[in-house]
């Protein structure tokens, strides 16, 4: 067990855990941030997507010991005061079905739009290819991303 101080959603939070603990389980089990979901544990489904210095990463495969000072943003840190435009676009399209994967989808979509303000269908396919939705909300995710882009995220 080691002590780590993490910069999560603009807060310094300390936890004690094994250094190889994936960020996902630290967030969920120890910090009560359960908006980030477990889906596969091997970084192939995207349910656990968070931002590390603004880049989308899979928290299930990111050991706590590798994070250091870098800023972590989870779904709970997005639109804390007011909903983020991507969240608003998700609401406008009524995107979720079961909703379980949507935290990860939203985190990937925000990261995409921060890099590319006007993504093509192919850009969306590529950026979102790591996020599985078993309910199949892909049609609406695509529309929501396009609408959010139009509204200049």
């Amino acid at each position, binding site marked *: 067990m080691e002590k780590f101080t993490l910069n999560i959603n603009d807060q310094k939070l300390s936890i004690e855990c094994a250094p190889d603990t994936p960020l996902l389980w630290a967030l969920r089990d120890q910090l009560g941030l359960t908006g980030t979901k477990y889906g596969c544990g091997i970084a192939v489904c995207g349910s656990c997507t968070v931002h590390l210095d603004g880049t989308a990463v899979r928290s299930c495969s990111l050991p706590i010991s590798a994070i250091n000072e870098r800023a972590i943003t989870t779904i709970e840190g997005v639109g804390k005061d007011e909903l983020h435009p991507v969240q608003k676009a998700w609401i406008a399209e009524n995107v*979720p079905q079961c909703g379980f994967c949507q935290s990860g989808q939203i985190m990937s979509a925000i990261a995409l739009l921060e890099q590319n303000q006007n993504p093509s269908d192919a850009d969306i396919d*590529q950026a979102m290819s790591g996020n599985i939705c078993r309910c199949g909300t892909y049609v609406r995710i695509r529309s929501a991303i396009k609408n959010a882009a139009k509204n200049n995220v």
Partner: protein
Amino acid sequence: MKPNTSNNKLFKVSRRDFVKIGAMGSTGLILGIPLACKQNKNTFLTGREDAVFAPNVYISILGTGEVQLIAHRSEMGTGIRTSLPLVMADEMEADWTKVSIIQAIGDAKYGDQNTDGSYSVRMFYHPLRVAGATVKLMLMQAAAQEWQVDISECKAFNHEIVHSSGKSFGYGYLTEKAAALPIPEESEVTLKDSKDFKFISKETVIYDLEDIVTGKAVYGLDKQIPDLKVAVIKRNPEAGAGLKSFNSDNATEIDGVSKVYKMEATAFPMGFNAPLGGIVVVANNTWTALKARDAVEVVWKKGINAGYDSNVFMEQMQRSVQKKGHVKRQEGSATKALREAAKVIESDFMVPHLAHSPMETPCAVARYNADGTCEIWAPVQSPQWVQQAVAAALGIEEPKVIVNVTLLGSAFGRKSKPDFVVEAALISKEINAPIKLLWTREDDIQHDFFHSNCAQHIKVGIDKNNKVTSWVHRSAFPSISGTASPDAKGPSSDELCMGVLDMPFEIENVSCEALDANAQIRIGWLRSVHNINHAFAIGSIVDQVAQARQMDPIDNMLDLLGSDRKINFAALVEGFNNYNVKLEDYPCDTQRFKKVVQLVKEKSGWGKSLPEGQGMGFAAHRSFLTYVACVVEVEVDDNNIKIPMVHYAIDCGVPVNPDRIRAQFEGGAAFGASLALKSEINVKKGAVVEDNFSNYHVARMADAPINTAVHFVENEEKPTGVGEPPVPPFIPALCNAIFMATGKRITRLPIKL
């Protein structure tokens, strides 16, 4: 839909209970036990905020005006937690912004809670309308009494009872008085005219929408209670086979591990409730539990299915369907007609095992208490079944098991099986502490209740006048019942009623046959169940028949459906099962069937000319009492398949929540794309080969349809299922589109070009 098995008792019991409760409605008690209906003429309006008016188990109005509506079905993504409450809200003229939705625990007083088989709306639409309308009537009676006017001068409007003079009372203010009134007979209650609907057939967003997009929604995996430990189980790769020995020394050395012990396995066929057994690892947190599980050394035993190889089994099934099977439906003489046919079209069709792989893996929180009660929080489709299964496993009475239903991170039928909750309850009792059991994705994919793999052969005879005169359909697949009973040797009639025996074509000579195939792995019902296999085969052969007849596929379909009629399958098939409802109430009406076919033709731009490498395919299928026609467009480029557009035309009766119906069809097409293009479970030596989304592939953004349009046939028929019906016709429509684009016929899933 589940077939009859010994483990399916709950389904039957619940249905009976529902009917019993429903019958009470006619004597004045709507759908359950009245909680506050003692007549007391001396009640006056005081506006007490702590007053409660709860005339039935589904609806309460508080003195504050808040309306609490019970969602007694499980929310797994269909929107049912919104769609049924909005039915009540509409009839009671409630203001939706003043409605709170309360998720019901598992309790027989709510009637059937088994969220499965696409029947939630079908079964509860009418009773919940009556429940809402009764509340409205009582509020009107209360106001009329208070004003001492005739009730005809009062009407309900947006959470108020308004008198013709303009004065009004809010619902909250009326609760005390309404609660003192006797509950009226159903015959006194008037339902709204459909033109007055405010929520039914209108667009209502899902109740949990904002919680979901902000990460606040609570699924089973998110549930926290004090002192919760985490458990995972190391299981024998062969379901039901036990273990020889294990060594947990390395595991127990890990800091934070509290217990490692053996849970007994139940031998195959173990049914749907029994834990698979194995080595249970309990730890302070998930990561520690996972590491400790890896550190446990186990020597497994081999069981009765150690030789199971799904490829060999498929070859056996394919061979078996070349010969005549057990005839389950027969008209005329197909053999004779085939002999005399000018052309015979025939093909085999193969579908592999499939896994449900819901995004949220099976998981459950259980707390076995010192007083002998057990509380559960879990993402389950059938909380009453869970209650029964847990009570039986713990040896306690059912009322001592409290099953709280969380949101379900999708389910597709997996979470109607109680096995994982039983495991959690047993572990909590064993360690005498609250635990959360996690199934990892590997556990989920390797130890699922798999979709039946299936081989079929269809043979169609066309006479010299280009008329289809014979139809032979043979299907071989392991029965779901085989998971519970060693006596289940192959498809049951109930299972064959999902596509084979309910074949709707007007053909003179018909033979529908079943071939034996025994379950050697846990088999379960997956979204759309056997309709997946059968619609794939039928929709594909029908396209070949159109080609052979040199007919447009849609014209061919309309011709095969034949004259306008309600098909009396009961006269054609012994013990015909029409999704557990009477054919008289929900007939297979070829007129309605043809209407969806014509509608999809009209809306899809069917017949337009397409560039090389593109194709349009069509298929139609009735399942779960809903008629669906589908046109899929594909672009095939260097064996890469893209699906730019899907059109569905559907007749599901009154569309109660159209946005959620469209969502089910959009998602159904994507689910179909997974099954058609990606997914396959292989079993070797009794163990599943695939173990995560890295090798059990499902549709991702680029694989799924880019657009899906849903066109409704407008009518006022009784609502029918929408969760499962989208999947079956999509797959053959896609295959037929691929044929048009490439000239290749697809006869085996997943598609390999």
